[in-house]
């Protein structure tokens, strides 16, 4: 926000502005670079494997012959884990946000909020570790004695824990943005807190909450380390959450860890899968931004 335009006479001022412009351009260059890298390398892959086979094939076998590059098993596994994660994080995250913004005393909030921030700051590799040392053994000991070392369920649960703080904090922001008047109006009508939350606040904050959920879904789809450690690297087309599966990100990691030659088809597949992953998360992020900008300032 600048109200005054000054004559830019001094060359030093102009040099500085140029430098700042370069810094700002780094972001654009990065975006263009990411898209270019993914597009070029994915095209090299599609010169050898037809895109139709890639996008509609239901068998993925990049390391065991006969090779097959149908991405559907990877996509389905990724989505299954993301949906399990959302099933856990959405209700708990929204409830936690409602509690923080509507029920908690200032003191309680000052304790809980930093805890959620700590949870959000823990590296995802640590969550992966938590999945193999606590969540999977716990599931085995209680409800699923047959569960193997790796499962989509454990991965989904841990990714749910991982995205919970994101949903909680964005939902809390959305609830806080609801004008006081709506709250007070509801209470003045004799509504209880629960009724106010359900009939007034949640509908009013719906767009913000929806944007948060979509963003969290994008996060879950792109999550790597927790999923690699918890879900394993077994590419198969299944919707059974107790099975070991391989997500798109897990495939990328598997190829990078081995000594796959850089000019092999497997290595090129890494870029094709990366491009698919990027396209999916990019679309979700755009939808989320779109929801926020479309419904913003509804009450001003």
């Amino acid at each position, binding site marked *: 926000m*600048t109200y005054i335009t000054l004559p830019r006479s001094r060359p030093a001022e102009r040099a*500085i502005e140029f430098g700042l412009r370069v*810094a700002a351009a780094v*972001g654009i260059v990065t975006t263009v670079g*990411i898209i270019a890298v993914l597009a070029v390398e994915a095209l090299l892959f599609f010169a050898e494997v037809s895109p139709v086979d890639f996008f509609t094939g239901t068998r993925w076998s990049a390391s065991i012959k006969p090779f097959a590059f149908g991405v559907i098993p990877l996509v389905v596994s990724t989505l299954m884990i993301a949906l399990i994660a959302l099933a856990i994080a959405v*209700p708990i995250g929204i*409830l936690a946000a409602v*509690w923080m913004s509507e029920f908690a005393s200032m003191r309680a909030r000052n304790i809980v909020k930093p805890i959620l921030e700590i949870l959000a700051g823990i590296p995802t590799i*640590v969550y992966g570790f938590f999945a193999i040392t606590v969540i999977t053994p716990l599931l085995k000991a209680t409800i699923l004695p047959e569960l193997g070392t790796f499962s989509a369920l454990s991965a989904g649960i841990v990714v749910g824990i991982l995205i919970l703080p994101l949903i909680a904090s964005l939902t809390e922001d959305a609830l806080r943005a609801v004008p006081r008047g709506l709250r007070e109006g509801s209470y003045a009508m004799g509504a209880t807190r629960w009724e106010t939350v359900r009939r007034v606040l949640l509908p009013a904050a719906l767009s913000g909450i929806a944007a948060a959920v979509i963003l969290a879904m994008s996060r879950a789809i792109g999550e790597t380390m927790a999923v690699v450690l918890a879900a394993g690297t077994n590419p198969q087309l299944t919707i059974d959450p107790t099975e070991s599966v391989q997500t798109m990100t897990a495939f990328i*990691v598997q190829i990078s860890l081995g000594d796959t030659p850089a000019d092999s088809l497997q290595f090129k597949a890494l870029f094709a899968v990366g491009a698919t992953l990027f396209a999916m998360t990019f679309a979700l992020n755009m939808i989320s931004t779109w929801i926020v900008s479309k419904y913003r300032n509804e009450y001003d």
Partner: protein
Amino acid sequence: MTNPSRAALHSGETTTLNRRKVKNALFSLLALAAIFVSMVTLAGLLIDLVGRGGSSLDVQFLTSSPSRIPAKAGILPALVGTLWVTVLVALITLPIGIGAAIYLEEYAGRGRIARLLKINISNLAGVPSIVYGIFGLAIFVRGLDLGRTAFAASLTLSLLILPVVIISSAEALKAVPPSQREAAYALGATRWQVIRRALLPAAAPGILTGIVLAVARAVGETAPLILIGAVTFVTFVPTNPFEDKYTVLPIQIFNWANRPQEAFLEISAAAILVLIALMLLLNGAAIYLRARLSRGLQW
């Protein structure tokens, strides 16, 4: 808070009112339970880590190289690698992040280019970290031929956290009251003088806090570094970030966690404790910086 009981009593619906009250109580209990779940998770995570890794955490662990024998293994090369990356990422993101934020807030105006820049940055913030790894592999490791070095890793991680740094720095600049800016202009300062002498000192606490927190995030990143070739078995201590082989704490943790033997899980937990301690240290530094720099700032 208004008391709903009166309205209901007047309409003579005591049973409905009771039901509503019960529903309300149930709901607040449910909401409290949700909070409880997050607390228990964090507690469970920490208890598990300390219980599993606490006993392996000693001076020998911090000063040894990795070994095939878990009892003799240590994290020194990984710790040094992580410190290299931390310092480099901070040095790279500081000028670029602040520069871009200043451009966005003070120069770009509100036209189409400014909007494009902002949308682009918020989109970049949502790109999965592993995609940055792919980019780093193609551009830094191969394209610029930096090889699999800590320097290439630092560049990749810097790009990864730049959006966060830019957004938080821009917020900090935005939070400076317009009066500060206007007063400086009124004294005849040029645009850069206003930024340098009035805006940056006032926004410094917010900017630096944001950068330190973003660097803490970079320190914990694992996935992009797997792509750009941090290796898992480094037995020497890297003396410079251009050395051909390096490793960092998260990679070391991943490598040990990925093995079936319990003994490796234990040292993995110990390494996680060190990583978390490092991140807490950075967070503490952020809090300290904010307190220290905002002293004497009064609007």
